């Protein structure tokens, strides 16, 4: 099981963490909500939950995923993208089978 973060995304995460002044990495997860099943979660991590979380290192960034989310996220690539003036993190998840029109939530 693994997750990948691209170089540009890793740079952004590091910059945001530096600016924030604290935090050990970035947490990725899913939660059940949204218009079409599940939604992605991306948060700063201050504390790792022993026993629940799995840690990955990629491009010098610590990625924290809880075990329940990991089954939905295995193989996901996190990238940083720019669309017009908008920019942000983008999830490419091989487990996704469909998503709502706006792409904020998905189903397996």
């Amino acid at each position, binding site marked *: 099981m693994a997750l990948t973060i691209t170089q540009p995304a890793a740079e*952004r*995460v590091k910059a*945001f963490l530096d*600016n*924030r002044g604290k935090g050990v990495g*970035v*947490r990725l997860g899913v*939660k059940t*909500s*949204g*218009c079409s099943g599940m*939604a*992605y*979660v*991306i*948060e*700063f*991590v*201050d*504390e790792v939950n022993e026993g629940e979380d799995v840690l990955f290192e990629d491009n010098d960034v610590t990625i924290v995923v809880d075990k329940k989310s990991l089954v939905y996220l295995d193989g996901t690539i996190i990238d940083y*993208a720019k*669309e*017009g*003036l*908008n*920019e*942000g*993190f*983008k*999830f490419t998840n091989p487990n996704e089978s469909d*998503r*709502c029109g*706006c*792409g*904020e*939530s998905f189903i397996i």
Partner: protein
Amino acid sequence: MALLQIAEPGQSSVPHQRRFAVGIDLGTTNSLVATVRSGVTETLADDDGNHLLPSVVRYQPDQTPVVGTLAKSHAVTDPFNTIVSVKRLMGRGVADLKSLGEQLPYKFADTDSTVPRITTAGGDVSAIEVSAEILKSLKDRSERTLGDELVGAVITVPAYFDDAQRQATKDAARLANLNVLRLLNEPTAAAVAYGLDSGQEGVVAVYDLGGGTFDISILRLTQGVFEVLATGGDSALGGDDFDHAIAEWIMPQVGLDESTIDPSIARLLLREACKAKEALSENDQVELDIELSENQRWFGLLTRDQFNQLVDPLIKKTLMACRRAMRDAGIEKNEIIDVVMVGGSTRALRVREQVGDFFQQEVLVSIDPDRVVAIGAAIQANALAGNDPDGGMLLLDVIPLSLGIETMGGLTEKIIHRNTPIPVSRAQDFTTYKDGQTAMAIQVVQGERELVSDCRSLAKFELRGFPPQVAGAARIRVSFQVDADGLLSVTAKEETSGVEAHVEVKPSYGLNDSEIETMLRESMDYASDDMKARSLREQQVEADRVIEALDAAMAEDGEDMLEADERDTILSASELLIQMRQTSETAQEIKLAIEDIERASAGYVAKRMNASVQKSMAGHKVEEFTVEEEKP
């Protein structure tokens, strides 16, 4: 798919529930928009990467207005249709224009309206409409950057803006379809950007030196709220004057005279002067190489010392304004705990140095002085939109609905009116209604309606145990105090005995904006019904009081003092009033009945008065009733 931002731990929002809010610095010369994303507060750029939007709007026939850099490039060639510095006109009436007249190149339309309208090729426009165009452009930029609609914006205004100017700014936002979360004073925004609102309480000075204006504000921070103690400044002093000073220093050296100089050469000199000024923030000296004409070049050297000499008189003028503002605020230099630097011209090292010397401390310069106001506004907007886990307690800046108490007859007596800025404290005196009354129930209500039943009850408490006196003799002072956190405390105190009772309530608790709006709208819609209801209740209360007083008097001495027929007249008038009190729906009928009873009992009242005077004078000499001279 949607592009995501990193949230604080546990703060991830449900899809489509993210609440984007921005801070807008709506400036005289330039405007900016900023937001908080992934924990970073930053100003937003347009497609070309420019953060600053020139506050310039150009109107053309049958075209949507052009905003920003493109409009600015026409400011000189098409001055009538290109509106600059519209902020100076915000909230101004036709009469105010005369005092501003000479600075404004525009043609004003002759209208009956009190709001001046500028005639342009695209039609007549008001200052509000021009500002709305600028806001629309920033709103569009924000929504494209954030990829979603905005829940609202915090817009900054100068601390000295009056209510009309603030209202005009809000109107402009409404025209731009932008929800205003709050108007924030510019110096307050700058202080918020440095996080001073969560820091030590005390006095903060905000020194704002822009291109053409200088503002100094003295703020006091208590419980997270900034109160403006004093403002001052000079609306015609700024960094442009620094450029002029340098250009005037160059002129004699190249053999030019200000009075005869060619305008294009003057502009060239100013441009070079500005460049030199900016370079001196980095270097100790700057070499000047100016091509005056094809065969005339001038080489010069401007050292930092020389530059300092040139601008010192200008900086001194700003410091004089600082001294005045401190005097107005009644503040000494040593009371000021922080000095915030705002405006591009505070990049000049000499300004920082002199201001630091003046206030005897290090000045705050770590945030880009052009953006600091927008950044502070964005932080506030983020907290107001509910995205900031630490900003859970939202400060109310004004009272959204009036606060008052219930008086006899179920009527509302407003003690603090809506839109009163907080913190605030108001008191009003009330009295007893019945003889021998020793307790009073106090119901605290919120709302604009006249009847308590139409308002919202916040709390009820009783003041008990004050000495019995005749009706109207007790003095009960009810004090309302709303602190900076929006917390209301009500105290009732009987002044002669000192008996006191107290209650605390949170006035805005559980009321959201739409409920407040509904309550306000109802107070308008039912205004005339309310007025009728109030006067009916007032007359009913008066009738009760008259009947009660009459009954008490009749029981006491009615038999002795009145002839049988007199008594009958009074009693039948009283019966009529009691009936009216129960059945009549109009205040006027009850009022007439009260007048009848007063007429019928006039003789009786006079007799009682005489008897009472005689009783109190019995056993005293006349001398005792002469006015004694006041003794110290």
